[in-house]
């Protein structure tokens, strides 16, 4: 028997693994190919076998024809719920994660969610994993519903956001491009100005607007580091807008959001002690110590708020990208 035929059957067998009638299927394919190869002009040769195999089709495609008849993992009617329920669950998960970071406590929503005590950086690593867990959990439930074969009407609250129904107002091609171009020019100017200020003063944060006598807000070390990170964030936004002139892909937003979140995380890892320049620090010391910590907390809360806004936008973009992929896969 031809080695090529055996290799071909072995490959089909691999894709059919787990099927009880696998041997029967392979015997029939073997019978067909040998029959066809023997009938051609000349003898029963490897070349004839090869030709018969080519006519029968690639192993994976052949196996899939046999697997077609089986029930899908998730019925088409329930696929929309994969996105809907994952969006809901992950929104809850993300909100509780932000709360856990802010309270510096672990949170349990038995038996659905457990969020350990996390730092901001931990949360950035935790959230993508949480998204995959939520997606997997919802997929598992829908899988069992599909396999049960019952017509179960899944609930979906009226007040829930259905991304299919939320469509951005239709803008003309040129209008949206012009808006993006204007945004890109503004961000480019902001980034340039920030770079110019940084090159001259080693910081972009000041307590006055007197261009002849600019006084820095932060001490030189932290001021330089935080300025560089903020300039990087400006640059990322500028780049995203420039790329969006060429493509409207949501992936641009996903990447831009992720980098921005990582940069905010980087700011939060900077030590905030001795943050303010001597002039401000002196003013703060005149007041009770609580005022100094209040100033630091205000910066932290502002950063967390910006991070939350970016995270929400990131989730929205990930859901939109996933939905598009699912729709293509249907």
């Amino acid at each position: 028997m031809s080695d090529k035929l055996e290799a071909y059957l072995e490959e089909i067998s691999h894709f059919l693994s787990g099927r009880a009638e696998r041997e029967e299927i392979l015997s029939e394919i073997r019978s067909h190919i040998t029959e066809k190869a023997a009938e051609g002009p000349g003898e029963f040769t490897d070349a004839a076998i090869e030709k018969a195999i080519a006519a029968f089709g690639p192993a994976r495609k052949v196996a899939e024809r046999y697997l077609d008849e089986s029930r899908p993992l998730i019925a088409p009617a329930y696929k929309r719920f994969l996105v809907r329920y994952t969006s809901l669950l992950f929104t809850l998960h993300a909100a509780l994660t932000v709360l856990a970071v802010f309270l510096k406590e672990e949170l349990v929503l038995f038996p659905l969610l457990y969020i350990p005590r996390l730092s901001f950086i931990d949360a950035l690593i935790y959230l993508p994993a949480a998204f995959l867990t939520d997606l997997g959990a919802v997929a598992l439930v829908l899988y069992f519903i599909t396999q049960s074969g019952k017509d179960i009407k899944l609930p979906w609250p009226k007040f829930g956001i259905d991304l299919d129904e939320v469509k951005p107002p239709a803008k003309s091609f040129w209008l949206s491009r012009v808006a993006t171009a204007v945004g890109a020019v503004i961000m480019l100017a902001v980034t340039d100005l920030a770079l110019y200020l940084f090159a001259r003063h080693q910081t972009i944060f000041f307590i006055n607007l007197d261009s002849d006598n600019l006084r820095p807000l932060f001490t030189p070390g932290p001021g330089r580091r935080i300025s560089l990170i903020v300039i990087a964030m400006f640059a990322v936004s500028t780049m995203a807008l420039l790329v969006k002139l060429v493509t409207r892909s949501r992936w641009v937003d996903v990447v831009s959001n992720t980098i921005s979140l990582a940069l905010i995380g980087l700011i939060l890892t900077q030590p905030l002690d001795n943050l303010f320049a001597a002039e401000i620090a002196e003013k703060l010391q005149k007041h009770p110590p609580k005022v100094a910590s209040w100033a630091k907390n205000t910066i932290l809360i502002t950063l967390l708020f910006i991070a939350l806004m970016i995270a929400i936008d990131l989730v929205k973009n990930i859901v939109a990208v996933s939905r598009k992929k699912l729709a293509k896969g249907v």
Partner: protein
Amino acid sequence: MTDKTQNEPDIGSLVTEMNRGFLHILVLALLEKDMYGYAMVKHIDTLGYKVEENTLYPLLRRLEKNGWIASKWDLTEDRPRKFYAITREGRTLRAGLLDVWKNQNRVLDEITKEISHV
């Protein structure tokens, strides 16, 4: 440009859809006489129709699973061959499918005549 590409008819996938039903009737009609897979492919070929080999065998398996055809291996020749034959349930199904098919053809004929008179 993109819209135009999206709206262009994909005749290949539509033909595949149409063939799926037709192939059921064709196979059930052919199997009035015992036949093995490769012989069916060749016979259909001589009638001026082409059936994909890797489509025929899974279809035969599904029809057999539903009890509309039955099979048995013939080991008396040089090469083993799996012969198929229609069952009583298969004949009933074939009659039903042929009725549907004839009615569809009649409707299409009527409409074609109506269009030609417009």
